């Protein structure tokens, strides 16, 4: 049961971080469908830091540098969306999709190139970071605490304060609701949208590294298996509000964790449900959840619409 809790909290942290990223971006008026790709690139940045840090470095340093690596990569990658969607008014759905494909391709090419240069018979796209991985976790009895759980909690609290209690947050949300009105009172809509997109990159990158450090190596060819999109479902279910997003993330995390640990829980193992069903569960549940939460959605009114000063 402890294991179930541990996995649930870890996956919930991943989903909450990425969903908050989506939340910032959409509140500023840009739909970030490229979060999946942002996760991959963030994960890549973090994983490479973990791989190249000399074993035996102080744990705190490893954690901080890994986080910084993931955050910078995520933010840089999300600027691809910023340039296309904010500066050039591109179709945000198309650009997001391209970013997802590009991320997996870039990550596999880069990792394979690194692996090939180390050993010309190694054509895999696996990054191994088993030596430094223990630095990210802390054992409390049977429970393996992961620093990303704390980061996710801080991110939720931070996002709540930032969005509802600061001038910046209220202005950001104004740009997603009615950019023309925001502009008329002197808010720079383009800057605010950039802020939203970059914040989504930061949080998405963080979510990416949190996701892959559940294990001690990662095959980058597989991307992150739709988790960027699950996070968007979490965001919609959470009605674009941080305090609800964390609850939605916990629910999704629970079902994802079941798939990982069901064989260790006697009565679940006894039911003999094929593992495919557990694999399917997060996707089916998100579909069902979307059915019930999309109709009266509290989506920002102007999300997905490029801001054009001249239109009214």
């Amino acid at each position, binding site marked *: 049961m402890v294991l179930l809790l541990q996995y649930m909290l870890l996956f919930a942290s991943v989903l909450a971080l990425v969903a908050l990223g989506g939340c910032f971006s959409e509140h500023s008026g840009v739909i970030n469908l490229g979060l999946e790709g942002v996760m991959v690139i963030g994960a890549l940045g973090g994983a490479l830091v973990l791989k190249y840090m000399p074993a035996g470095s102080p744990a705190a340093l490893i954690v901080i540098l890994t986080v910084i690596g993931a955050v910078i990569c995520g933010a840089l990658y999300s600027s691809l969306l910023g340039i296309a969607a904010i500066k050039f008014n591109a179709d945000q759905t198309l650009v997001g999709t391209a970013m997802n494909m590009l991320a997996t391709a870039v990550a596999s090419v880069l990792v394979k190139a690194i692996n090939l240069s180390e050993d010309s018979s190694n054509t895999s796209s696996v990054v191994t970071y088993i030596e430094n991985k223990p630095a990210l976790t802390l054992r409390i009895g049977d429970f393996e605490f992961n620093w990303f759980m704390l980061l996710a909690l801080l991110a939720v609290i931070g996002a709540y304060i930032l969005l509802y209690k600061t001038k910046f947050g209220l202005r950001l949300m104004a740009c997603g609701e009615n950019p023309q009105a925001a502009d008329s009172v002197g808010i720079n809509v383009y800057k605010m949208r950039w802020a939203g997109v970059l914040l989504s990159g930061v949080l998405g990158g963080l979510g990416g590294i949190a996701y892959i450090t559940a294990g001690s190596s990662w095959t980058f060819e597989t991307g992150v*298996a739709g988790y960027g999109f699950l996070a968007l479902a979490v965001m919609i279910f959470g009605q674009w509000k941080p305090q609800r997003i964390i609850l939605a993330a916990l629910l999704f995390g629970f079902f994802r964790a079941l798939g990982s640990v069901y064989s260790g829980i006697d009565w679940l193992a006894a039911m003999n449900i094929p593992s495919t069903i557990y694999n399917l569960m997060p996707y089916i549940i998100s579909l069902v959840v979307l059915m019930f939460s999309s109709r009266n959605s509290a989506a920002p009114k102007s999300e997905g619409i490029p801001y054009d000063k001249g239109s009214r």
Partner: protein
Amino acid sequence: MKNKKSFMENPAVQGILSALICIVIGVLIGYIVLLVINPAEAGTGIMAIMKNFFNYPIGKIGMKYFGSTLVKTAPLIMCALSICFCYKVGLFNIGAAGQYVVGAGVSLYTALAWGLPWYLCIILAGLGGALSGLLIGVLKAFLNVNEVISGIMLNWISLYCVNMLLTGVKEPSSPYTLPLTGHGNAGLIPSLGLSTLFNNDKVTIAIPLSILFAILVWVILDKTKFGYELKATGYNKNAAKYAGMKEKKNIIIALAIGGALAAIGASFLYLSGIENWEVGRSSVPGMGFNGIAATFLGALNPIGSIFSSFFIQHITDGAVFLDKTAFPSQIPDLITAIIIYLCGFMGFIKMLLAGKKKNKAAPSAETKQEGGKQ
């Protein structure tokens, strides 16, 4: 001068030119990546990708590999048509990848387990894909579920379900499904002499059929009242509703047709016998996603999709000729993804193309309109 101006303003010319610009930049970036990884081999590497079957001497062997690329182009055309069709109605059918999976599952299962003839397999696969698209459409029209997110969820759901379904017809000793030859001969699409022409027994009438589908989609979209209504719904849902069109019905029908197209595409590939399904696969096949590239590169024109699909499949197959010990095999994926990203800038590129030929005196209401539409 006057002639030239109207030439550059022709949307078809603009479409082709901007697609070519995207391709050139995409390939250039791919080349730079190769240069960074291995400067000595980069030139041969990019040439290997671009040449694909021309790496073999022209003649029988070259034709054979040309045929293989065509066999895989047919499903790509169908996926591109699926995405193109839905996009005209304002829908982004990323679920084409999942509908493709459904098509693969249904066509292989009906051919192997039930021994049905190929045309029935194709029709059933199309129905399966249509159902999957229908589901996305109903969710979108009545429950306001974003079609991209529900599409992605269905992609994964379809993958796991098809894996389960096809486990019933897999080879005992390998993770692949049984070959059609010997286990479901009736399911093989006939070739009508094309296989001798290409010296490749996988080349079937699926290829001309996919081109026929492209023409059919073009006719429906551009020459019929039904197509006009669909496009009207895409331009402005509320206006279409106001004009008495059933906008919800149009959304659902468009996604169902899109689903059928992608699924039929999958049956074109798997019923040619060129590939068997790996029942343990953990990622959705890239065909549906490459279809997005083909659609936008083809300037959202069904006929354009034929050529862009061929180009994308051409460079994807070119990866086989890359030296695996020198370069990662994902380089073509990289180029394709960059091209899709650049397609997002197509509106801007077209604006430049149109603007360049304009006189300074006319700073162009038209240019603005072009930009505004994007």
